[in-house]
């Protein structure tokens, strides 16, 4: 099996995630699609790490995971706040910075 297969799979997952970000309206689902894209990027980093035989790729993937965790925490807090002020989690309703 060619090592490129992992990269192809990651590209496919990244594309699916991007399509989800563009298509979906629910802010939480949009967020989940962003997570899918980050995971696809992690898969390429880990496949490249094995391809080149050093661990720098894995360290990068580790950092991506930490940043994704921080991003999820802040993003979900923003979604909860938006829901409190607008009573909807749809991205269409959040068209103003301030009510």
């Amino acid at each position, binding site marked *: *099996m*060619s*090592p*490129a*297969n*992992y*990269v*192809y*799979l990651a*590209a*496919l*997952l990244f*594309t*699916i*995630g*991007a*399509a*989800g970000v*563009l*298509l*979906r309206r629910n802010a*939480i*689902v949009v*967020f*989940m*699609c962003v*997570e*899918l894209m980050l*995971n696809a990027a*992690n*898969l390429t980093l*880990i496949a490249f*790490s*094995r*391809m080149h*035989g*050093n*661990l720098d790729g*894995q*360290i990068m*993937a*580790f*950092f991506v*995971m*930490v*940043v*994704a*965790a*921080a991003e*999820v*925490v802040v993003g*979900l*807090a923003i*979604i*909860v*706040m938006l*829901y*409190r002020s607008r009573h909807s*989690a*749809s991205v269409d309703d959040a068209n103003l910075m301030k009510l």
Partner: protein
Amino acid sequence: MNPTQLAVAATSTGEAVQFWVLGTVAVLGGLGTVLIRRAVHSALCLAGTMIILAMFYLANGAYFLGVVQIVVYTGAVMMLFLFVLMLVGVSAADSLKETLKGQRWLAACCALGLGILLITGIGQASVGSFTGLGAANAGGNVPALAELLFTKYVVAFEVIGALLTVAAVGATLLTHRERVEKSKSQREQAEERVRAGKQLPPLPAPGVYARHNAVDRPGLLPDGTPAESSVSHTLRSRGQIREVSAEQMASLAALEQRTAEYHGQPSPRRGPAEPSRRAIERARPQDAGEEPADGDGGRDSEREEAAK
């Protein structure tokens, strides 16, 4: 070279089979995340995809990251997503109404274009074969990662620690709500209650004294009508209340009629469910002296009928 190092260096048939089976499931999970309308189902699909990605990490020699993927992503991040979903309302399915005309098709075209771009880009690149992590993981994956993390990437590590702290504080700040008005004291609450004209003493107890004491029997008022406030609203809306007054009224009316027949008098016609003060008063032997005899007479006539 030990077997795990060998497995990391070469791609076996087993790994190819694993890749095709799990890769298909991962893509299906990703498609499910995007296409399923219920947000909870999307989250479950995404969790499945993440677990499969963790297996790919393990197959690629990233043992530490594979475990971290399951613990942090599937365990913590997806649970956080589900918590917020439950908080925001699970039933809120996506609306199908298009707010921008043709946006869906344009978005799908853009995604397709991105996919073609990425895949042809990978096709152009010369991806050789795996060097393998056998040498890098020789002393174990976790010690090797730790050595790299605390020497070459130590500054990035510190910065990321600060980032996590800032994120935690930020999330707390964002979701924190300051209480604007003062909370009411007990006295103020009591005064409000009196002013609103609500029921001040405790509500009447359910059950009919000495006959029923279940909570689904409304207590009877002096005129024989059930006291509405003596049973819970929940039971009433479920239709689980057993009204005692109607059957009691009916039995009283029957008794009265039999008594009247025994004495040869015309019986007063009474509806069986109609509650009446007189019937209640007659049912109490201690209230009226002549009534017990009537009641006994009624029972005697019953016994005579049974004997015949």
